[in-house]
């Protein structure tokens, strides 16, 4: 059962991730990316990381992807074949990777997935609290650095978008 659920999520993620680049209508690409985000969130739920699943949906599906859709619609991009002529290059890169993967799978012994083993944290534990504790103790420095980088990006966006009111006039 657990393997079946994982297989479903992983399969859909793989297929939709491929469709994002393969579909010719950009709006459909964005939608398949949406489906992919949903299934990634589903994977988090099977790992009992409900907090991450919710954050995944709020941040990626709810905010970032809506802005993508916004841009795609504003640009009114029609079906575009320009980027579909590169499949030979893509195949040249990807076929060796696929072969490597198959070799790895054939060579390695298949252990039962740790995702569904017995020692997982139960649904009763508060994983939001656990994440907060880890983030603000063990990973405090990387966390602060990341927030600083985001702040810089934010100021950069404001500087780029801002018009000089005093000089040339808005």
């Amino acid at each position: 059962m657990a393997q079946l659920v994982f297989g479903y999520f992983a399969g859909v993620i793989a297929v939709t991730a491929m469709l994002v680049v393969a579909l010719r209508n950009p709006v459909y690409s964005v939608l398949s990316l949406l489906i992919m985000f949903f299934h990634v969130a589903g994977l988090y739920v099977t790992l009992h990381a409900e907090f991450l699943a919710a954050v995944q949906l709020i941040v990626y599906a709810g905010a970032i992807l809506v802005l993508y859709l916004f841009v795609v619609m504003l640009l009114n991009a029609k079906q575009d074949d320009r980027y579909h002529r590169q499949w030979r290059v893509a195949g040249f890169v990807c076929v060796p990777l696929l072969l490597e993967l198959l070799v790895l799978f054939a060579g390695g012994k298949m252990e039962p997935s740790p995702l569904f083993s017995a020692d997982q944290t139960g649904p009763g534990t508060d994983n939001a609290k656990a994440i907060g504790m880890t983030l603000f103790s063990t990973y405090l420095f990387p966390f602060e650095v990341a927030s600083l980088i985001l702040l810089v990006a934010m100021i950069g966006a404001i500087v780029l978008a801002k018009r000089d009111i005093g000089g040339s006039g808005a």
Partner: protein
Amino acid sequence: MTELGLRFFLSLTQIAVVVVIVIVTVLILTLAERKVLGWMQDRMGPMEVGPYGILQPFADAIKLFFKEDIVPAGANKFLFTAAPLLALIPAFIGFAVIPWGPDWTVEFNGTVIKPFVISDINIGILYILAFASLGAYGIILGGWASNSKYSLLGGLRSAAQVISYELNVGLAIIGVIILAGSLSLVKITNAQSGWFWHWYLFAFPAPQIFAFVVYVISSVAETNRVPFDLPEAESELVAGFFTEYSGLRFAFFYLAEYANMVLVSCIAAAMFLGGWNAPYPGTVFDLLGLPSLAWIENTMWFAAKTYFFLFLFFWLRATLPRLRYDQLMRFGWKVMLPIALANIVVTSIAVYLFPNS
């Protein structure tokens, strides 16, 4: 029947009951809105169908059901069909974690269920926010797929508005989450039992009054209601993103809007006004020696609080004119957002100073 099958059956029953309650509430709302607006404008409201017009929602439903289903020329048929569903599903799915009544458990043939909440998950409120943020897709795709300029502009406006105000909703409820120390709506509601000054609107270390005001204003904006109904501003955009919709698909958008109103009202009642808790400790039925009937009183209190917010929606609609688009954005980012952020800081300091209250 196996245990899994029984659990499945019980959950389906709960879901069916909740969906029926929500749809009935929406039916009542469509009538109540016109009646309340009528009274506020010194009119009678609908009076023709049934005694005093109370069968008007059914007349509306039948009319929408039998209207011709039109797909405009040049529309993207697949997305045109999918958009109303994408708007409707997120509006209904959030009700799964709303606690309607006391936190009881009932054992049914060896399976323990909570009768008044479909699923008590530990990230309840985040779950609602996650799915509420998906409602924007239905609106924006509906606007785009219609192949109409008015619809597209309405959809784009809506996307910008929903994203901006979603942020304020999320930040406004963080104060309550800090006070409750939990994301589960069941636990948040349980923590507010007792006298009404235990409600998080008035709770001791940090009353969430400002957060409450920010939440109410932002949720009105998030549900695209007057005075923030820019996506469907009649004077500029005909009817905004659902200009081209008719019949049942239009009914889906309509249903989604009203279900969203009910949902944000339920969240406001559960997070700020104590949910199903009465303003006094315990219940009257307990004092009368009928504790098994206490749930009636509790659910009635929840309904009363929810309907108070729904009345507020109508009241605002009858009172305020529509904002201009730049006013809307400036208000959201320059007024609501700083208030919500300041509330988080103040609440955190208060909880740090009074950790045990």
